[in-house]
């Protein structure tokens, strides 16, 4: 028997410092725009300044003659070089939209690329944009998604014949009858405005083409190198081994870098055609105008309850403003459909009807943004819960307690078809209440309120599906498989361990956490392990990092591959140490016979297997490299409760967050330091979504928030310290026991802040139906409520 102490994990669960940090702290990172290739041509784009127009003519002669300009391209110059991109889906009532690298005859949103200038540097490329003349014949533009549904609305994609690019309905029970019979009904029309993911690194990419080897390498600030490799291979009709997509260090993504963009296709096409490196460095204006936006829904919702607070029925009618195109590979359906599929949340809601329409407008396309649909679903549901609690004169925590799915009810099938596996729904609520001392918080609030102060407390409970496997990822019929992940783990001839993955870390610290998993499973030293990721050439199939998948899927693949590799190492060691396999174990990079002082280092075993031929029988020299694919099939549920305490300054309408607590169940915690960091950052984004961040277009489809002065993301002075409590209440069915947690903070925070704002304004009789609640909106709300109270 091996020593049980040795078997105990040492790295999983430990606050291991990140291996990524030294390079990033010293300016030695390798971000896409850091790649310097002599002779590279720089692209600048002349983008549409019209929201909707036909292109009647383009004159590029003056631009082409400008100093330093190498070539000017329009859509006509690309005919035959590249196929249009289409995000297909098997979903009924879905219309894919063709997307060309440069607008072809028509523009559908401000910022759409129309002409590309290639020049010797970025300055000269941008100079030449002024030499381009484009004749537009303006078309009627539609900016309001409700108007886009109208019979006389301009249709963006004539081949679709409608602006409704996707439509879906979930239904369980007789919603009309249940609503009619219910004694308590609360509801309203909710609005969650459009966001920009706003990674601090703007999108950038450089394509290089090695003509001798026919090898195209795209270095890009992307979350999905594997998806892009597969798509480019198709669009350019090249074999996968001739297309490599690299995302070494990526400066944040949050979903904004999880789609394939026209710029990436164009640099690849032109680099291959010209045999030269072609680069594009996006600026912040381009980021805010063209990186996929997030959220943007109108939700009419109603919740029916019994007099004791038992939830009876929920109905939601959702319009998702998806912008001008259906984004690749996710489709226009992804964001709005998740609003209705997750609307019932972690509660027992027997009867449900949720209907959603994804509506095209003349704005930038929406795509995945941290939380995807669920921040909106949670905002609406948690607001309804608080409205119901007030109607019933029940404490909001108590109403949640009565309706959260109970431990004995798992697995619980949500009315939309989602199945929650066991997760600490109720425990998260209780632990968050305990951590913040909820009763005292309410007492303090009562005193402050008596003194005339606008203080509020808001709770948000939610559940999400994470680490989604092939069963669920296949359901919408997208052209990619997100439900599996591959690990190749190798012990090389020097005794070093390398783990290759299809994921693409962009801040999550996966080079550290996956090394922790492998170290424990293999018995290797952390220092001997290197994780390679962010490169499509590493594994046969990969997609990238998004949707809170990487710890669950790559972690599971790592566990699976490391276990098999360890068996092989131990079999080799049993020959070398002349001991039975059962008596041998590995730890700290050594293999030892338990109860003896006989041991070998991984290095010694590697040498015996690879180089010191003769030390092992020929058939005992197994390959010390294992590839395993992991598919969690369904995935797992992650649950949390957030509690926010805040005060509104009635003079300035500035909101000050005083306390913020998150209790979450992310299963087995690999690295608590990293989990804390993910929660903090996600909550900060949720606070921004609740209070300041809004992408605004005017009625003509012009973007009004095109700088970081107008699109306001939170600074250090606006984010409170965030207290986190990690529960590990139920072991999920995933290999390794991990649940995903990268997005959760952004799912809970808008709802918690909205409920706290509504609570603060309760004495005035005001409700919160709209986010972000900017100072201007708060001012109007307070002014109107005060006027109504006075009877004006």
């Amino acid at each position, binding site marked *: 028997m091996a020593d049980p102490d040795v078997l105990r994990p040492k790295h999983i669960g430990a606050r291991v410092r990140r291996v990524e940090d030294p390079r990033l702290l010293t300016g030695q990172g390798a971000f896409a725009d850091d790649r310097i290739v002599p002779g590279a041509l720089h692209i600048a784009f002349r983008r549409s300044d019209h929201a909707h127009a036909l292109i009647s003519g383009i004159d590029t002669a003056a631009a082409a003659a400008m100093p330093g300009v190498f070539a000017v391209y329009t859509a006509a110059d690309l005919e035959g070089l590249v196929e249009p991109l289409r995000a297909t889906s098997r979903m009924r009532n879905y219309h894919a939209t063709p997307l060309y690298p440069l607008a072809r005859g028509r523009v559908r949103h401000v910022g759409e690329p129309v002409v590309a200038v290639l020049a010797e540097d970025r300055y000269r490329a941008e*100079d030449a944009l002024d030499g381009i003349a484009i004749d537009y014949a303006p078309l009627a533009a539609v900016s309001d998604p409700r108007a886009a549904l109208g019979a006389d609305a301009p249709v963006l994609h004539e081949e679709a014949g409608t602006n409704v690019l996707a439509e879906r309905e979930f239904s369980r029970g007789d919603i009309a009858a249940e609503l009619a019979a219910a004694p308590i009904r609360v509801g309203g029309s909710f609005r969650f405005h459009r966001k920009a993911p706003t990674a601090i690194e703007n999108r950038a990419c450089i394509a290089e083409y090695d003509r001798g080897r026919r090898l195209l390498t795209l270095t890009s600030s992307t979350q999905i190198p594997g998806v892009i490799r597969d798509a480019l291979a198709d669009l350019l009709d090249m074999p996968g081994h001739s297309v490599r997509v690299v995302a070494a260090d990526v400066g944040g993504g949050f979903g904004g870098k999880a789609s394939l963009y026209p710029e990436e296709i164009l640099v690849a096409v032109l680099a291959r055609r010209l045999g030269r490196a072609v680069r594009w460095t996006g600026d912040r204006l381009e980021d805010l105008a063209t990186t996929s936006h997030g959220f943007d829904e109108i939700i009419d919702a109603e919740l029916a309850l019994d007099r004791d607070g038992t939830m009876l029925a929920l109905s939601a009618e959702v319009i998702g403003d998806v912008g001008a195109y259906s984004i690749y590979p996710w489709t226009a359906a992804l964001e709005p459909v998740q609003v209705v599929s997750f609307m019932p949340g972690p509660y027992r809601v027997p009867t449900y009807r949720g209907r959603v329409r994804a509506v095209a407008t003349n704005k930038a396309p929406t795509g995945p943004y941290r939380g995807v649909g669920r921040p909106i679903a949670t905002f609406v549901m948690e607001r309804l819960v608080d409205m119901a609690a007030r109607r019933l004169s029940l404490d909001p925590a108590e109403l949640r307690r009565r309706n959260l799915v109970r431990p004995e009810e798992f697995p619980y099938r949500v009315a939309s078809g989602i199945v929650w596996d066991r997760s600490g729904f109720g425990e998260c609520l209780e632990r968050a209440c305990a951590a913040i001392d909820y009763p005292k918080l309410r007492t303090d609030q009562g005193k402050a309120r008596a003194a005339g102060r606008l203080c509020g407390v808001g709770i948000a409970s939610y559940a999400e599906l994470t680490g989604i496997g092939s069963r669920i990822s296949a359901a919408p019929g997208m052209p990619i498989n997100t439900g599996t992940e591959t690990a190749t783990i190798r012990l090389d001839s020097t005794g070093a361990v390398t783990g290759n993955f299809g994921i693409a870390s962009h801040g999550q610290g996966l080079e550290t956490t996956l090394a922790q998993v492998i170290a424990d499973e293999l018995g290797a030293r952390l220092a001997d392990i290197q994780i390679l990721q962010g490169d499509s050439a590493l594994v046969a199939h990969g997609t990238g990092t998004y949707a809170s998948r990487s710890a669950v899927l790559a972690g599971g693949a790592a566990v699976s591959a490391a276990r098999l590799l360890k068996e092989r190492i131990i079999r080799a060691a049993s020959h070398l140490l002349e001991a039975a396999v059962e008596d041998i174990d590995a730890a700290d990079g050594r293999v030892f016979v338990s109860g003896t002082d006989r041991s070998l280092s991984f290095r010694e075993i590697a040498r015996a297997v690879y180089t010191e031929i003769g030390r092992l029988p020929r058939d005992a020299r197994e390959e010390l490299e294992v590839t395993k694919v992991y598919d969690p099939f369904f995935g797992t549920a992650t649950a949390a409760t957030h509690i926010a305490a805040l005060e509104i300054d009635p003079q300035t309408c500035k909101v000050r967050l005083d306390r913020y607590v998150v209790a979450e169940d992310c299963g087995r915690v690999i690295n608590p330091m990293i989990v804390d960091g993910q929660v903090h950052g996600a909550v900060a984004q949720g606070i921004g979504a609740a209070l300041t961040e809004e992408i605004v277009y005017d009625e003509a489809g012009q973007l009004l928030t095109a700088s970081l002065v107008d699109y306001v993301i939170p600074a250090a002075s606006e984010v409170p310290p965030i207290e986190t409590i990690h529960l590990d209440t139920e072991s999920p069915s995933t290999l390794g026991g991990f649940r995903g947690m990268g997005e959760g903070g952004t799912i809970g925070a808008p709802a918690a802040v909205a409920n706290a704002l509504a609570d603060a304004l309760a004495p005035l009789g005001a409700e919160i139906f709209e986010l972000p609640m900017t100072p201007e909106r708060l001012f109007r709300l307070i002014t109107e409520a005060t006027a109504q109270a006075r009877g004006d």
Partner: protein
Amino acid sequence: MSKHRTIKATVNGIAYERSVEPRLLLSDFLRQTLGLTGTHVGCEHGVCGACTVLIDGDSARACLYFAVQADGRHIETVEGLGTIDDLSPLQQEFREHHALQCGFCTPGMLMTCVDLLKKYPLASDAEIRDGLSGNLCRCTGYEHIVRAVRAAAARRGRKDDG
């Protein structure tokens, strides 16, 4: 375009003489001309602070300076702090407290902190947060950065760190 001008600037202790266009941004001079890609560019309009460097000891946004304005001046960038094998005390605290995730805002954040640590008591978290409020980070939610700066401020007075 316009005629080139010759500038002499000291960057991280090394004297450079280069011929540049008057319109060349300092951020592009550092990244493209000198190959010091540690200084990152996040907005090119002076809001995000990712490109923060020290000019004659004071923090400044390299995207709001022209390279010609650096003529005769001393510039310090993230490459002038510690090395991978020998991190500076501030860099060590950033690592210890997990004050970075994607690492893109980090060089600017560090250079701002160098300036703050030199000039201000940083006696409270509120003061630290005020000092950091000109540098945007989208990953961390700032709490871990605040802790790192708090630790670096405390360490500042100790003898062993000089």
